[in-house]
């Protein structure tokens, strides 16, 4: 069945490229052609949806000076390489590949197409024509950790995680550090669903966590299913990627919103001006790439605390990964007065002290 499934996916990807599916292109000449590939459907109301909002912002900004294309639902792995290759051959000037697992395929295709610019989101490998960009989601997760610790009555946070990659693990650590800054005894229960997007499974995970005593749900998956479960069960939750308030009008405390538009507009502009360079951009709250949805369903003092923390992170006064930080074995990893360097956050694969669980695969 797996084989049939992968055949189906391959067929789907092939047909999409043949122009029957997700590709939308507009013919013209002398325009900058920009393409995006997404891991999920643009209708996921999460990760891919927000990237597509960025693409739409580029179209709106440059009008008929730009031509955009996107391919949705591209599985990480060999299929991705084929799709990226096709986009490069189709004459795109710049290609944004928006999932961690596209890193190797993007690098391979970038080597074959030295005149095309590639932009890989959330990875760490660059080339002369391949830049990387990411957002400091962990800054937002520190804030939600503090809110969670204030708002939880049971002292247990439930966390729905996707895959054990650095981006997700650093999010868990950052949330825990934020929570511990308020309540050193806070507990976290982590459930890995091993999927970025499977609404029913995310809902099941939320139910399982609530059944086990968590009264605050945080997620690093892409659908609003968990928010809806929290609303139905009368607990609080944090949204992911998009503002999910409509799914949890009484449940959502805030949501960590991805805002890729400024970056995409800037990079496409650079292609137009001929000033594009391979860079490694890691923007956060300060740059508006990570935004917090309005703080709702919480007392004024908690809201004030959240706003203060947000302001401190923006001003640079506070870094979520500032020492002292201990690992699970109790060893001091970051000394007092120091911060964990960016490159270590980007390759983080250990939990901080106080997380009563093990990193999968370790």
């Amino acid at each position, binding site marked *: *069945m797996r084989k*049939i*499934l992968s*055949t*189906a996916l391959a*067929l*789907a990807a092939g*047909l999409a490229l043949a122009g*029957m*599916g*997700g590709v939308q292109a507009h013919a013209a000449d002398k325009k900058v052609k920009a393409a995006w590939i997404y891991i*999920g*459907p*643009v*209708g*996921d*109301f999460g990760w891919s*949806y927000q990237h597509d909002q960025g693409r739409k912002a580029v179209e709106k900004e440059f009008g008929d000076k730009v031509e955009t294309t996107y391919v*949705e*639902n591209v599985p990480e792995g060999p299929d991705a390489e084929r799709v990226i290759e096709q986009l490069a051959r189709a004459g795109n000037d710049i290609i944004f590949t928006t999932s961690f697992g596209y890193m190797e395929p993007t690098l391979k295709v970038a080597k074959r197409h030295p005149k095309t610019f590639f932009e890989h989101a959330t990875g760490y490998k660059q080339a002369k024509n391949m830049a990387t960009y990411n957002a400091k989601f962990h800054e937002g997760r520190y804030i939600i950790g503090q809110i969670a610790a204030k708002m939880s009555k049971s002292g247990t946070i*439930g966390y729905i995680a996707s895959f*054990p990659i650095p981006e997700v693990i650093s999010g868990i650590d950052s949330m825990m550090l934020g929570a511990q800054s308020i309540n050193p005894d806070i507990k976290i*229960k*982590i*459930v*890995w*669903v*091993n*999927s970025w*997007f*499977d*609404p*029913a*499974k*995310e*809902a*099941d*995970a939320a*139910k*399982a*966590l609530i*059944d*086990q005593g968590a009264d605050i749900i945080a997620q690093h998956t892409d*659908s*609003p*299913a968990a928010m*809806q479960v929290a609303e*139905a069960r009368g607990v609080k939750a944090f949204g992911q990627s*998009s503002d999910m308030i*409509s*799914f949890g009008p009484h449940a959502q405390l805030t949501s960590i919103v991805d805002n890729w538009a400024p970056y995409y507009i800037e990079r496409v502009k650079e292609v137009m001006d001929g000033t594009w360079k391979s860079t490694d951009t890691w923007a956060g709250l300060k740059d508006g790439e990570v935004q917090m949805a309005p703080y709702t369903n919480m007392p004024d003092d908690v809201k004030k605390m959240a706003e203060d923390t947000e302001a401190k992170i923006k001003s640079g006064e506070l870094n979520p990964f500032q020492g002292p930080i201990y690992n699970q074995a109790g060893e001091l990893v970051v000394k007092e007065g120091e911060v964990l360097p960016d490159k270590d956050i980007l390759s983080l694969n250990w939990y901080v002290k106080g997380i*009563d*669980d*093990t990193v*999968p*695969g370790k």
Partner: protein
Amino acid sequence: MLDAAIIGAVLASIVAAATTLLLASIGELVAERAGTLNLGVEGMMIVGAAVGYAAAYGSGSLILGTIAAMLAGTLLSLVFAGLAIWLAANQVASGLATTILGLGLAGLIGSPFVGTTLTAAPALHIPVLSDLPIVGPVLFGQDAFAYASIALLAIVAYGLARTRAGLVLRAVGESHVAAHALGHPVRRIRTLAVMFGGACAGLAGAQLSLAYTPFWASDMTAGRGWIALALVVFSAWRPLWLLGGAYLFGAVSILQLHVQGFGLGIPSQLLSSLPYLATIAALVVISALKRGQGAPASLGVPFVPDR
């Protein structure tokens, strides 16, 4: 750590997870017993989810949404039937095309509804019985979809085994030439079986978008149609085994989440693969027992009369 309330809640989650699979696979079982392998289940499900959501959102009625979902699944199944039964095209290719078409169509139909939400189909509440500890919420506190799935299963099990229509349907699936020689309208019977499969898949989609996670998002079926197909093989084409298979898969997929929550330190990748491992193990046991795999003899073979 484990009290009655948790056990009841876990069992209730298992019923919901199994219901999706059961609804989709009952219909496919009937289609396959008639000799047609329709790989379009995923596509028919997702179209059901999208149309069902759109209709329920527009009309404010979950019942209308459910009916619309079943009609949509049926309509898409007719695309498959036209290709695979009436034009005798390759069934595997026709089924895959149906799924791809369904995924695309559903994304298009659903796009205006991204980011909206509905009130979920309510759980039924039967006084006294629903309030019993553990068994109350599990047996008497489910939504209508769960009861419909069990009722459908019972009807299909009885119909296939005990009625004349069921006998004819099985005959068509075993030997369409013999059935044709006896004067049975093979292609019409297969079309009806495929339409039934489409309606069931549409119903499964409605369960997802109206009850399980009451919103619309593209690809929200996330491969459940394929699992439903696998379950039909797992069940050796027998309705009661299908019930067991759907509940086994549902149980393992919910329990692994709880095991993770308890932090027992078992790698989550292993736990996530457990439902599949359990299915494979069961398949091995079934084939070792050699008690007739039960695949309909004409399954997947196109029928062209008077050849």
